[in-house]
Protein backbone atom coordinates (compact mmCIF):
# COMPACT_ATOMS: atom_id res chain seq x y z
CA UNK A 1 0.00 0.00 0.00
CA UNK A 2 1.16 3.51 -0.77
CA UNK A 3 1.41 6.11 2.03
CA UNK A 4 -1.81 8.03 2.46
CA UNK A 5 -2.07 11.75 3.02
CA UNK A 6 -4.13 12.51 6.06
CA UNK A 7 -6.39 15.42 6.86
CA UNK A 8 -5.33 18.31 9.05
CA UNK A 9 -6.23 18.35 12.70
CA UNK A 10 -7.20 21.91 13.56
CA UNK A 11 -8.82 22.36 16.92
CA UNK A 12 -9.14 18.66 17.59
CA UNK A 13 -10.47 18.30 21.07
CA UNK A 14 -9.35 15.55 23.35
CA UNK A 15 -12.80 14.31 24.20
CA UNK A 16 -13.64 10.65 24.09
CA UNK A 17 -14.13 9.24 20.62
CA UNK A 18 -16.30 6.38 21.91
CA UNK A 19 -18.09 6.28 25.21
CA UNK A 20 -20.64 3.78 26.45
CA UNK A 21 -22.48 3.91 29.73
CA UNK A 22 -24.11 0.75 30.97
CA UNK A 23 -24.62 -0.43 27.39
CA UNK A 24 -26.39 -3.77 27.18
CA UNK A 25 -28.02 -6.03 24.63
CA UNK A 26 -30.28 -8.94 25.35
CA UNK A 27 -31.20 -11.48 22.63
CA UNK A 28 -34.01 -13.91 23.36
CA UNK A 29 -33.31 -13.97 27.06
CA UNK A 30 -29.51 -14.12 26.72
CA UNK A 31 -27.27 -11.18 27.59
CA UNK A 32 -24.95 -10.64 24.62
CA UNK A 33 -23.47 -7.48 26.15
CA UNK A 34 -23.87 -6.53 29.79
CA UNK A 35 -23.56 -3.07 31.28
CA UNK A 36 -20.59 -2.05 29.17
CA UNK A 37 -18.70 1.09 30.17
CA UNK A 38 -16.11 1.92 27.52
CA UNK A 39 -13.99 5.04 27.24
CA UNK A 40 -11.94 5.33 24.06
CA UNK A 41 -9.74 8.45 24.06
CA UNK A 42 -9.51 10.49 20.86
CA UNK A 43 -6.31 9.85 18.96
CA UNK A 44 -5.81 6.34 20.25
CA UNK A 45 -5.65 3.04 18.41
CA UNK A 46 -7.97 0.98 20.54
CA UNK A 47 -8.09 -2.79 20.33
CA UNK A 48 -11.39 -4.40 21.23
CA UNK A 49 -10.56 -7.98 22.14
CA UNK A 50 -12.51 -11.02 23.04
CA UNK A 51 -13.07 -14.64 22.13
CA UNK A 52 -15.67 -15.53 19.50
CA UNK A 53 -19.15 -14.76 20.79
CA UNK A 54 -17.88 -12.32 23.42
CA UNK A 55 -20.14 -9.53 22.13
CA UNK A 56 -17.64 -7.46 20.11
CA UNK A 57 -19.67 -7.28 16.90
CA UNK A 58 -22.89 -6.70 18.85
CA UNK A 59 -21.24 -3.75 20.59
CA UNK A 60 -20.07 -2.30 17.28
CA UNK A 61 -23.55 -2.78 15.80
CA UNK A 62 -25.04 -0.85 18.72
CA UNK A 63 -22.48 1.94 18.31
CA UNK A 64 -23.43 2.28 14.64
CA UNK A 65 -27.19 2.14 15.17
CA UNK A 66 -27.49 -1.24 13.46
CA UNK A 67 -28.82 -2.80 16.68
CA UNK A 68 -30.90 -1.21 19.44
CA UNK A 69 -29.38 -1.35 22.92
CA UNK A 70 -31.54 -3.07 25.52
CA UNK A 71 -30.07 -0.75 28.14
CA UNK A 72 -27.60 2.09 28.54
CA UNK A 73 -26.38 4.64 26.04
CA UNK A 74 -23.49 5.24 23.69
CA UNK A 75 -21.76 8.30 22.27
CA UNK A 76 -19.54 8.64 19.23
CA UNK A 77 -17.39 11.78 18.99
CA UNK A 78 -19.62 13.34 21.63
CA UNK A 79 -22.84 12.67 19.67
CA UNK A 80 -25.48 10.15 20.78
CA UNK A 81 -25.06 6.92 18.79
CA UNK A 82 -28.00 5.51 16.83
CA UNK A 83 -29.45 4.98 13.36
CA UNK A 84 -29.66 8.73 12.68
CA UNK A 85 -26.57 9.85 14.63
CA UNK A 86 -24.99 13.09 13.45
CA UNK A 87 -21.61 11.46 14.10
CA UNK A 88 -22.01 9.27 10.99
CA UNK A 89 -20.60 12.14 8.90
CA UNK A 90 -17.26 11.84 10.73
CA UNK A 91 -17.07 8.06 10.99
CA UNK A 92 -15.67 5.34 8.75
CA UNK A 93 -16.85 1.76 9.19
CA UNK A 94 -15.58 -1.55 7.88
CA UNK A 95 -17.68 -4.63 8.79
CA UNK A 96 -16.06 -8.04 9.19
CA UNK A 97 -17.42 -9.23 5.84
CA UNK A 98 -18.05 -6.13 3.73
CA UNK A 99 -20.66 -6.57 0.99
CA UNK A 100 -20.71 -4.39 -2.11
CA UNK A 101 -22.74 -4.02 -5.28
CA UNK A 102 -21.03 -6.60 -7.49
CA UNK A 103 -21.82 -4.79 -10.74
CA UNK A 104 -19.76 -1.77 -9.71
CA UNK A 105 -16.01 -1.34 -10.06
CA UNK A 106 -13.88 -0.30 -7.10
CA UNK A 107 -13.60 3.34 -8.19
CA UNK A 108 -17.33 3.58 -8.80
CA UNK A 109 -18.07 2.29 -5.33
CA UNK A 110 -15.73 4.81 -3.74
CA UNK A 111 -17.38 7.62 -5.72
CA UNK A 112 -20.79 6.35 -4.59
CA UNK A 113 -19.60 6.32 -0.97
CA UNK A 114 -18.16 9.84 -1.33
CA UNK A 115 -21.45 11.14 -2.69
CA UNK A 116 -23.32 9.61 0.26
CA UNK A 117 -21.08 11.75 2.46
CA UNK A 118 -22.05 14.80 0.39
CA UNK A 119 -18.46 15.37 -0.73
CA UNK A 120 -17.63 17.65 -3.68
CA UNK A 121 -17.19 15.87 -7.01
CA UNK A 122 -13.56 16.99 -7.39
CA UNK A 123 -12.69 15.98 -3.82
CA UNK A 124 -14.27 12.56 -4.43
CA UNK A 125 -12.18 12.02 -7.58
CA UNK A 126 -8.97 13.04 -5.82
CA UNK A 127 -9.67 10.94 -2.75
CA UNK A 128 -10.79 7.94 -4.83
CA UNK A 129 -7.55 7.94 -6.84
CA UNK A 130 -5.55 8.25 -3.63
CA UNK A 131 -7.38 5.42 -1.87
CA UNK A 132 -7.18 3.09 -4.87
CA UNK A 133 -3.41 3.57 -4.85
CA UNK A 134 -3.30 3.17 -1.10
CA UNK A 135 -5.15 -0.14 -1.15
CA UNK A 136 -3.41 -1.46 -4.26
CA UNK A 137 -6.65 -1.51 -6.25
CA UNK A 138 -5.65 1.13 -8.81
CA UNK A 139 -5.68 -0.41 -12.24
CA UNK A 140 -8.04 -3.23 -11.24
CA UNK A 141 -10.59 -3.20 -14.04
CA UNK A 142 -12.78 -6.10 -12.97
CA UNK A 143 -16.14 -5.65 -11.32
CA UNK A 144 -16.34 -6.14 -7.56
CA UNK A 145 -18.20 -9.44 -8.12
CA UNK A 146 -14.87 -10.84 -9.34
CA UNK A 147 -12.88 -9.67 -6.29
CA UNK A 148 -11.23 -12.04 -3.82
CA UNK A 149 -12.13 -11.69 -0.14
CA UNK A 150 -8.86 -9.89 0.49
CA UNK A 151 -9.57 -7.39 -2.29
CA UNK A 152 -13.03 -6.78 -0.87
CA UNK A 153 -11.48 -6.18 2.54
CA UNK A 154 -9.09 -3.63 1.06
CA UNK A 155 -11.95 -1.92 -0.80
CA UNK A 156 -13.86 -1.95 2.48
CA UNK A 157 -11.00 -0.12 4.15
CA UNK A 158 -10.84 2.37 1.28
CA UNK A 159 -14.56 3.20 1.48
CA UNK A 160 -14.25 3.60 5.26
CA UNK A 161 -11.57 6.24 4.69
CA UNK A 162 -13.26 8.15 1.84
CA UNK A 163 -14.45 10.94 4.16
CA UNK A 164 -11.18 11.24 6.10
CA UNK A 165 -13.00 10.13 9.25
CA UNK A 166 -12.21 11.28 12.76
CA UNK A 167 -13.20 7.83 14.02
CA UNK A 168 -12.58 4.60 12.17
CA UNK A 169 -14.49 1.55 13.38
CA UNK A 170 -13.13 -1.74 12.05
CA UNK A 171 -14.66 -5.11 12.80
CA UNK A 172 -12.04 -7.86 12.40
CA UNK A 173 -10.23 -5.92 9.63
CA UNK A 174 -7.39 -8.38 9.10
CA UNK A 175 -9.13 -11.72 9.49
CA UNK A 176 -9.50 -12.28 5.72
CA UNK A 177 -6.06 -11.08 4.72
CA UNK A 178 -2.87 -12.97 3.96
CA UNK A 179 0.21 -12.11 6.08
CA UNK A 180 1.38 -9.42 3.64
CA UNK A 181 -2.07 -7.85 3.40
CA UNK A 182 -2.36 -7.95 7.18
CA UNK A 183 0.92 -6.16 7.61
CA UNK A 184 -0.11 -3.48 5.10
CA UNK A 185 -3.43 -2.85 6.83
CA UNK A 186 -1.73 -2.64 10.20
CA UNK A 187 0.83 -0.20 8.82
CA UNK A 188 -2.04 1.86 7.43
CA UNK A 189 -3.73 1.89 10.82
CA UNK A 190 -0.47 3.02 12.40
CA UNK A 191 -0.18 5.84 9.87
CA UNK A 192 -3.76 6.95 10.53
CA UNK A 193 -3.26 7.39 14.26
CA UNK A 194 -2.00 10.94 13.67
CA UNK A 195 -5.44 12.16 12.66
CA UNK A 196 -7.88 9.37 13.36
CA UNK A 197 -9.05 7.41 16.33
CA UNK A 198 -9.11 3.76 15.37
CA UNK A 199 -11.40 1.37 17.21
CA UNK A 200 -11.01 -2.17 16.00
CA UNK A 201 -12.21 -5.51 17.15
CA UNK A 202 -10.08 -8.55 16.63
CA UNK A 203 -9.14 -11.89 18.04
CA UNK A 204 -5.65 -11.75 16.48
CA UNK A 205 -3.59 -10.72 19.49
CA UNK A 206 -0.40 -10.14 17.51
CA UNK A 207 -2.20 -7.39 15.55
CA UNK A 208 -3.19 -5.68 18.77
CA UNK A 209 0.34 -5.77 20.16
CA UNK A 210 1.61 -4.32 16.92
CA UNK A 211 -0.57 -1.20 16.68
CA UNK A 212 -2.72 -0.58 19.73
CA UNK A 213 -2.21 1.92 22.54
CA UNK A 214 -5.05 0.65 24.64
CA UNK A 215 -7.20 -2.45 24.71
CA UNK A 216 -10.46 -3.57 26.17
CA UNK A 217 -11.14 -7.26 26.69
CA UNK A 218 -14.69 -8.49 26.48
CA UNK A 219 -15.79 -11.93 27.62
CA UNK A 220 -19.34 -13.29 27.59
CA UNK A 221 -20.59 -9.73 27.15
CA UNK A 222 -18.71 -8.38 30.15
CA UNK A 223 -15.81 -5.93 30.06
CA UNK A 224 -13.07 -7.72 31.97
CA UNK A 225 -10.16 -5.34 31.37
CA UNK A 226 -9.50 -1.94 29.83
CA UNK A 227 -6.11 -0.27 29.87
CA UNK A 228 -2.80 0.17 28.06
CA UNK A 229 -1.04 -2.96 26.84
CA UNK A 230 1.94 -2.26 29.09
CA UNK A 231 -0.39 -1.81 32.05
CA UNK A 232 -2.19 -5.07 31.31
CA UNK A 233 1.07 -6.97 31.03
CA UNK A 234 2.31 -5.50 34.27
CA UNK A 235 -0.89 -6.41 36.02
CA UNK A 236 -1.71 -9.81 34.63
CA UNK A 237 1.35 -11.43 33.12
CA UNK A 238 3.23 -14.09 35.03
CA UNK A 239 6.96 -14.73 34.92
CA UNK A 240 7.87 -17.28 32.28
CA UNK A 241 10.91 -19.22 31.13
CA UNK A 242 11.77 -20.90 27.86
CA UNK A 243 14.14 -23.82 27.80
CA UNK A 244 15.34 -26.53 25.49
CA UNK A 245 17.05 -29.75 26.60
CA UNK A 246 19.21 -32.08 24.56
CA UNK A 247 17.00 -34.98 25.70
CA UNK A 248 14.37 -35.94 28.30
CA UNK A 249 12.16 -32.90 27.70
CA UNK A 250 8.84 -34.71 28.17
CA UNK A 251 9.88 -36.33 31.44
CA UNK A 252 11.24 -33.03 32.75
CA UNK A 253 7.97 -31.28 31.85
CA UNK A 254 6.05 -33.92 33.81
CA UNK A 255 8.31 -33.40 36.82
CA UNK A 256 7.84 -29.63 36.73
CA UNK A 257 4.05 -29.92 36.68
CA UNK A 258 4.07 -31.31 40.19
CA UNK A 259 5.84 -28.30 41.75
CA UNK A 260 4.01 -25.63 43.80
CA UNK A 261 5.56 -22.58 42.17
CA UNK A 262 4.98 -23.84 38.60
CA UNK A 263 1.63 -22.65 37.24
CA UNK A 264 1.75 -24.05 33.73
CA UNK A 265 4.11 -26.00 31.49
CA UNK A 266 3.67 -25.91 27.72
CA UNK A 267 5.57 -28.17 25.37
CA UNK A 268 5.97 -26.75 21.87
CA UNK A 269 8.14 -28.99 19.71
CA UNK A 270 11.33 -29.55 21.63
CA UNK A 271 10.92 -26.35 23.65
CA UNK A 272 9.32 -25.91 27.07
CA UNK A 273 7.53 -22.77 28.20
CA UNK A 274 7.17 -22.61 31.97
CA UNK A 275 4.89 -20.11 33.69
CA UNK A 276 5.76 -19.65 37.35
CA UNK A 277 4.30 -17.79 40.31
CA UNK A 278 7.72 -16.72 41.60
CA UNK A 279 10.34 -15.59 39.05
CA UNK A 280 13.22 -15.62 41.48
CA UNK A 281 12.46 -19.16 42.60
CA UNK A 282 12.32 -20.24 38.98
CA UNK A 283 15.66 -18.67 38.09
CA UNK A 284 17.37 -20.69 40.83
CA UNK A 285 15.33 -23.87 40.90
CA UNK A 286 14.97 -24.70 37.20
CA UNK A 287 18.73 -24.89 36.41
CA UNK A 288 19.17 -26.78 39.71
CA UNK A 289 16.57 -29.37 38.74
CA UNK A 290 18.16 -29.82 35.32
CA UNK A 291 21.59 -30.36 36.89
CA UNK A 292 20.16 -32.70 39.54
CA UNK A 293 18.65 -34.92 36.80
CA UNK A 294 21.83 -34.87 34.76
CA UNK A 295 20.10 -33.34 31.72
CA UNK A 296 21.99 -31.36 29.09
CA UNK A 297 20.69 -27.80 28.69
CA UNK A 298 20.59 -26.40 25.13
CA UNK A 299 18.83 -23.12 25.83
CA UNK A 300 17.44 -21.23 28.85
CA UNK A 301 15.92 -17.75 28.91
CA UNK A 302 13.57 -15.58 30.87
CA UNK A 303 10.64 -15.04 28.54
CA UNK A 304 8.88 -11.71 27.85
CA UNK A 305 5.20 -11.86 28.76
CA UNK A 306 2.91 -11.79 25.72
CA UNK A 307 -0.52 -10.33 25.31
CA UNK A 308 -1.71 -13.87 24.73
CA UNK A 309 -0.67 -14.77 28.28
CA UNK A 310 -2.57 -11.76 29.57
CA UNK A 311 -5.60 -12.58 27.43
CA UNK A 312 -5.73 -16.18 28.56
CA UNK A 313 -5.34 -15.18 32.19
CA UNK A 314 -7.92 -12.35 32.05
CA UNK A 315 -10.49 -14.38 30.15
CA UNK A 316 -9.75 -17.44 32.22
CA UNK A 317 -10.30 -15.56 35.48
CA UNK A 318 -13.47 -13.82 34.31
Amino acid at each position, binding site marked *: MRPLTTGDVPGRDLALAVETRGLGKRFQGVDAVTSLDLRVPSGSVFGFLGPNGAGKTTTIRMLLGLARPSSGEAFLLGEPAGPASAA*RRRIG*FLPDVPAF*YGWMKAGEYLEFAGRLFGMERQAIRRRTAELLEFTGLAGVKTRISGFSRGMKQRLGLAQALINQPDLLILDEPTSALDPLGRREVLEAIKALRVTTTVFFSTHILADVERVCDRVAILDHGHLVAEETIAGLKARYSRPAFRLRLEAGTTEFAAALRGLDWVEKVELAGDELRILVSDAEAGKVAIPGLIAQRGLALARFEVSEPTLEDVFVKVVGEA
Partner: protein
Amino acid sequence: MSGLSTLLGKEIREILRTSRIYVIPGLFLFFGLTSPLLTKLMPELLKSFGGSAGGIEILIPPQTAVDAFAQFFKNLTQVGILAVILTTMGAVADEKTRGTVLLVVTKPVARVSVVVAKFLAGVLVVVFGTALGYVAALYYTIQLFPGVPVAASLRAATVFAVYVVFIVALTVWASTVMRSQVAAAGVALAGFVTAGILPSLSPVLARWTPGGLVGLTGRMFAANASLGDAGETIAVSLVVSFLLVAAAGWSLGRQEL
Protein backbone atom coordinates in the same frame (compact mmCIF):
# COMPACT_ATOMS: atom_id res chain seq x y z
CA MET B 1 -34.16 12.76 2.80
CA SER B 2 -30.39 12.93 2.64
CA GLY B 3 -28.72 10.68 0.09
CA LEU B 4 -31.86 10.22 -2.03
CA SER B 5 -30.44 11.53 -5.31
CA THR B 6 -27.26 9.46 -4.92
CA LEU B 7 -29.22 6.33 -4.06
CA LEU B 8 -31.69 6.88 -6.91
CA GLY B 9 -28.77 7.37 -9.31
CA LYS B 10 -27.27 4.11 -8.08
CA GLU B 11 -30.59 2.29 -8.53
CA ILE B 12 -30.98 3.56 -12.09
CA ARG B 13 -27.40 2.58 -12.99
CA GLU B 14 -27.99 -0.84 -11.42
CA ILE B 15 -31.14 -1.35 -13.51
CA LEU B 16 -29.32 -0.28 -16.67
CA ARG B 17 -26.21 -2.38 -16.02
CA THR B 18 -27.95 -5.58 -14.97
CA SER B 19 -30.55 -7.62 -16.82
CA ARG B 20 -33.37 -5.92 -14.90
CA ILE B 21 -33.76 -3.31 -17.63
CA TYR B 22 -34.78 -6.03 -20.09
CA VAL B 23 -37.26 -7.96 -17.94
CA ILE B 24 -40.30 -5.74 -17.32
CA PRO B 25 -40.03 -3.42 -20.36
CA GLY B 26 -39.26 -6.49 -22.49
CA LEU B 27 -42.25 -8.42 -21.18
CA PHE B 28 -44.62 -5.47 -21.51
CA LEU B 29 -43.31 -4.85 -25.04
CA PHE B 30 -43.91 -8.51 -25.85
CA PHE B 31 -47.53 -8.19 -24.71
CA GLY B 32 -47.85 -4.97 -26.69
CA LEU B 33 -46.64 -6.71 -29.83
CA THR B 34 -48.53 -9.96 -29.47
CA SER B 35 -51.89 -9.00 -27.94
CA PRO B 36 -53.31 -7.25 -31.06
CA LEU B 37 -51.95 -9.98 -33.31
CA LEU B 38 -53.41 -12.79 -31.20
CA THR B 39 -56.73 -10.98 -31.02
CA LYS B 40 -56.77 -10.62 -34.79
CA LEU B 41 -55.86 -14.27 -35.36
CA MET B 42 -58.04 -15.68 -32.58
CA PRO B 43 -61.13 -16.43 -34.75
CA GLU B 44 -58.98 -18.27 -37.29
CA LEU B 45 -57.15 -20.16 -34.55
CA LEU B 46 -60.37 -21.21 -32.86
CA LYS B 47 -61.92 -22.21 -36.15
CA SER B 48 -59.00 -24.46 -37.00
CA PHE B 49 -59.09 -25.85 -33.44
CA GLY B 50 -62.82 -26.48 -33.68
CA GLY B 51 -62.39 -28.16 -37.04
CA SER B 52 -59.83 -30.54 -35.79
CA ALA B 53 -61.84 -31.29 -32.64
CA GLY B 54 -64.64 -33.02 -34.45
CA GLY B 55 -66.64 -30.38 -36.25
CA ILE B 56 -67.72 -28.25 -33.26
CA GLU B 57 -68.94 -24.92 -34.55
CA ILE B 58 -67.63 -21.96 -32.57
CA LEU B 59 -69.32 -18.63 -33.09
CA ILE B 60 -67.04 -15.68 -32.46
CA PRO B 61 -68.13 -12.10 -32.88
CA PRO B 62 -65.82 -10.04 -35.09
CA GLN B 63 -62.77 -8.90 -33.11
CA THR B 64 -62.26 -5.16 -32.60
CA ALA B 65 -59.57 -2.75 -31.52
CA VAL B 66 -61.16 -2.67 -28.04
CA ASP B 67 -60.77 -6.46 -27.84
CA ALA B 68 -57.10 -6.08 -28.75
CA PHE B 69 -56.56 -3.59 -25.92
CA ALA B 70 -58.62 -5.73 -23.53
CA GLN B 71 -56.28 -8.63 -24.28
CA PHE B 72 -53.23 -6.38 -23.76
CA PHE B 73 -54.38 -5.08 -20.37
CA LYS B 74 -55.51 -8.54 -19.29
CA ASN B 75 -51.99 -9.83 -19.91
CA LEU B 76 -50.48 -6.89 -18.04
CA THR B 77 -52.75 -7.17 -15.00
CA GLN B 78 -52.07 -10.91 -14.65
CA VAL B 79 -48.66 -12.09 -15.88
CA GLY B 80 -47.29 -8.53 -16.01
CA ILE B 81 -48.09 -7.82 -12.37
CA LEU B 82 -46.67 -11.18 -11.25
CA ALA B 83 -43.44 -10.31 -13.07
CA VAL B 84 -43.33 -6.91 -11.36
CA ILE B 85 -43.69 -8.58 -7.95
CA LEU B 86 -41.01 -11.17 -8.72
CA THR B 87 -38.51 -8.59 -9.96
CA THR B 88 -39.17 -6.17 -7.08
CA MET B 89 -39.40 -8.61 -4.16
CA GLY B 90 -35.66 -8.41 -3.45
CA ALA B 91 -35.46 -4.61 -3.58
CA VAL B 92 -34.70 -4.12 0.12
CA ALA B 93 -34.75 -7.72 1.43
CA ASP B 94 -31.85 -8.69 -0.82
CA GLU B 95 -29.75 -5.74 0.39
CA LYS B 96 -30.43 -6.78 3.99
CA THR B 97 -29.64 -10.44 3.32
CA ARG B 98 -26.41 -9.73 1.46
CA GLY B 99 -25.39 -6.93 3.85
CA THR B 100 -24.87 -4.25 1.20
CA VAL B 101 -27.23 -1.93 3.06
CA LEU B 102 -24.87 -1.81 6.07
CA LEU B 103 -22.30 0.30 4.26
CA VAL B 104 -25.07 2.66 3.14
CA VAL B 105 -26.99 3.28 6.36
CA THR B 106 -23.83 3.76 8.44
CA LYS B 107 -23.11 6.80 6.27
CA PRO B 108 -25.06 10.07 6.71
CA VAL B 109 -28.09 8.80 4.81
CA ALA B 110 -31.72 8.82 5.92
CA ARG B 111 -32.91 5.22 5.91
CA VAL B 112 -36.20 6.28 4.35
CA SER B 113 -34.14 7.42 1.32
CA VAL B 114 -33.12 3.80 0.71
CA VAL B 115 -36.78 2.80 0.44
CA VAL B 116 -37.86 5.84 -1.58
CA ALA B 117 -35.00 5.33 -4.06
CA LYS B 118 -36.04 1.68 -4.53
CA PHE B 119 -39.67 2.72 -5.03
CA LEU B 120 -38.90 5.51 -7.50
CA ALA B 121 -36.55 3.29 -9.50
CA GLY B 122 -39.23 0.60 -9.62
CA VAL B 123 -41.79 3.18 -10.75
CA LEU B 124 -39.49 4.37 -13.53
CA VAL B 125 -39.11 0.81 -14.81
CA VAL B 126 -42.81 -0.05 -14.76
CA VAL B 127 -43.95 3.28 -16.19
CA PHE B 128 -41.34 3.01 -18.96
CA GLY B 129 -42.42 -0.59 -19.57
CA THR B 130 -46.09 0.38 -19.65
CA ALA B 131 -45.37 3.21 -22.10
CA LEU B 132 -43.29 0.94 -24.32
CA GLY B 133 -45.88 -1.84 -24.29
CA TYR B 134 -48.71 0.61 -24.86
CA VAL B 135 -47.03 2.27 -27.85
CA ALA B 136 -46.39 -1.16 -29.39
CA ALA B 137 -49.97 -2.26 -28.73
CA LEU B 138 -51.34 0.99 -30.17
CA TYR B 139 -49.19 0.71 -33.30
CA TYR B 140 -50.17 -2.89 -34.01
CA THR B 141 -53.82 -2.28 -33.23
CA ILE B 142 -53.87 0.61 -35.70
CA GLN B 143 -52.25 -1.66 -38.27
CA LEU B 144 -54.68 -4.53 -37.74
CA PHE B 145 -58.04 -2.98 -36.78
CA PRO B 146 -60.19 -0.09 -37.93
CA GLY B 147 -61.58 2.56 -35.56
CA VAL B 148 -58.93 2.53 -32.87
CA PRO B 149 -60.07 4.39 -29.69
CA VAL B 150 -56.75 6.16 -29.07
CA ALA B 151 -57.95 8.47 -26.27
CA ALA B 152 -59.73 5.64 -24.43
CA SER B 153 -56.70 3.38 -24.71
CA LEU B 154 -54.48 6.13 -23.34
CA ARG B 155 -56.88 6.55 -20.39
CA ALA B 156 -56.76 2.80 -19.77
CA ALA B 157 -52.96 2.83 -19.92
CA THR B 158 -52.91 5.66 -17.38
CA VAL B 159 -55.22 3.74 -15.03
CA PHE B 160 -53.04 0.64 -15.39
CA ALA B 161 -49.89 2.69 -14.73
CA VAL B 162 -51.37 3.88 -11.41
CA TYR B 163 -52.24 0.28 -10.53
CA VAL B 164 -48.74 -0.99 -11.27
CA VAL B 165 -47.26 1.87 -9.21
CA PHE B 166 -49.40 0.61 -6.31
CA ILE B 167 -48.03 -2.92 -6.90
CA VAL B 168 -44.46 -1.57 -6.79
CA ALA B 169 -45.21 0.25 -3.51
CA LEU B 170 -46.82 -2.90 -2.06
CA THR B 171 -43.84 -5.07 -3.04
CA VAL B 172 -41.22 -2.57 -1.80
CA TRP B 173 -43.09 -2.41 1.52
CA ALA B 174 -43.19 -6.23 1.74
CA SER B 175 -39.50 -6.39 0.81
CA THR B 176 -38.69 -3.97 3.62
CA VAL B 177 -40.72 -5.49 6.42
CA MET B 178 -39.78 -9.08 5.60
CA ARG B 179 -36.33 -10.60 6.08
CA SER B 180 -36.14 -12.66 2.88
CA GLN B 181 -37.09 -12.25 -0.76
CA VAL B 182 -39.34 -15.30 -0.69
CA ALA B 183 -41.27 -14.02 2.33
CA ALA B 184 -41.53 -10.60 0.66
CA ALA B 185 -42.92 -12.22 -2.50
CA GLY B 186 -45.43 -14.18 -0.41
CA VAL B 187 -46.68 -11.08 1.38
CA ALA B 188 -46.82 -9.04 -1.84
CA LEU B 189 -48.72 -11.81 -3.66
CA ALA B 190 -51.17 -12.06 -0.76
CA GLY B 191 -51.66 -8.28 -1.02
CA PHE B 192 -52.13 -8.54 -4.78
CA VAL B 193 -54.74 -11.31 -4.43
CA THR B 194 -56.55 -9.40 -1.66
CA ALA B 195 -56.53 -6.23 -3.77
CA GLY B 196 -58.06 -8.27 -6.59
CA ILE B 197 -60.81 -9.79 -4.41
CA LEU B 198 -61.95 -6.66 -2.57
CA PRO B 199 -63.63 -4.94 -5.58
CA SER B 200 -65.82 -8.01 -6.17
CA LEU B 201 -67.23 -7.76 -2.63
CA SER B 202 -69.02 -4.45 -3.04
CA PRO B 203 -69.23 -1.47 -5.41
CA VAL B 204 -67.90 0.74 -2.60
CA LEU B 205 -64.74 -1.33 -2.32
CA ALA B 206 -64.45 -1.38 -6.10
CA ARG B 207 -64.46 2.41 -6.07
CA TRP B 208 -62.32 3.02 -2.99
CA THR B 209 -59.58 0.36 -3.13
CA PRO B 210 -56.63 0.10 -5.56
CA GLY B 211 -57.85 -3.23 -6.94
CA GLY B 212 -60.77 -1.36 -8.52
CA LEU B 213 -58.31 0.03 -11.08
CA VAL B 214 -58.16 -3.34 -12.87
CA GLY B 215 -61.86 -3.18 -13.76
CA LEU B 216 -61.56 0.50 -14.60
CA THR B 217 -59.03 -0.14 -17.39
CA GLY B 218 -61.85 -1.90 -19.30
CA ARG B 219 -64.43 0.71 -18.43
CA MET B 220 -62.26 3.47 -19.94
CA PHE B 221 -63.39 2.16 -23.38
CA ALA B 222 -67.11 2.72 -22.68
CA ALA B 223 -68.88 5.55 -24.47
CA ASN B 224 -68.60 8.90 -22.64
CA ALA B 225 -66.01 7.48 -20.20
CA SER B 226 -63.41 9.86 -18.83
CA LEU B 227 -60.41 9.62 -16.52
CA GLY B 228 -62.55 11.44 -13.95
CA ASP B 229 -64.65 8.27 -13.61
CA ALA B 230 -61.60 6.64 -12.06
CA GLY B 231 -60.67 9.75 -10.02
CA GLU B 232 -61.48 8.41 -6.55
CA THR B 233 -59.85 5.04 -7.18
CA ILE B 234 -56.73 6.67 -8.64
CA ALA B 235 -56.50 9.06 -5.68
CA VAL B 236 -56.96 6.25 -3.15
CA SER B 237 -54.34 4.13 -4.92
CA LEU B 238 -51.79 6.94 -4.91
CA VAL B 239 -52.46 7.67 -1.22
CA VAL B 240 -52.17 3.97 -0.33
CA SER B 241 -48.93 3.77 -2.35
CA PHE B 242 -47.55 6.77 -0.48
CA LEU B 243 -48.56 5.26 2.86
CA LEU B 244 -46.95 1.92 1.97
CA VAL B 245 -43.65 3.63 1.09
CA ALA B 246 -43.82 5.77 4.23
CA ALA B 247 -44.52 2.68 6.35
CA ALA B 248 -41.59 0.89 4.72
CA GLY B 249 -39.30 3.85 5.46
CA TRP B 250 -40.47 3.96 9.07
CA SER B 251 -39.97 0.22 9.41
CA LEU B 252 -36.43 0.27 7.97
CA GLY B 253 -35.60 3.15 10.32
CA ARG B 254 -36.44 0.94 13.30
CA GLN B 255 -35.01 -2.34 12.08
CA GLU B 256 -31.87 -4.02 13.37
CA LEU B 257 -29.66 -4.70 10.37
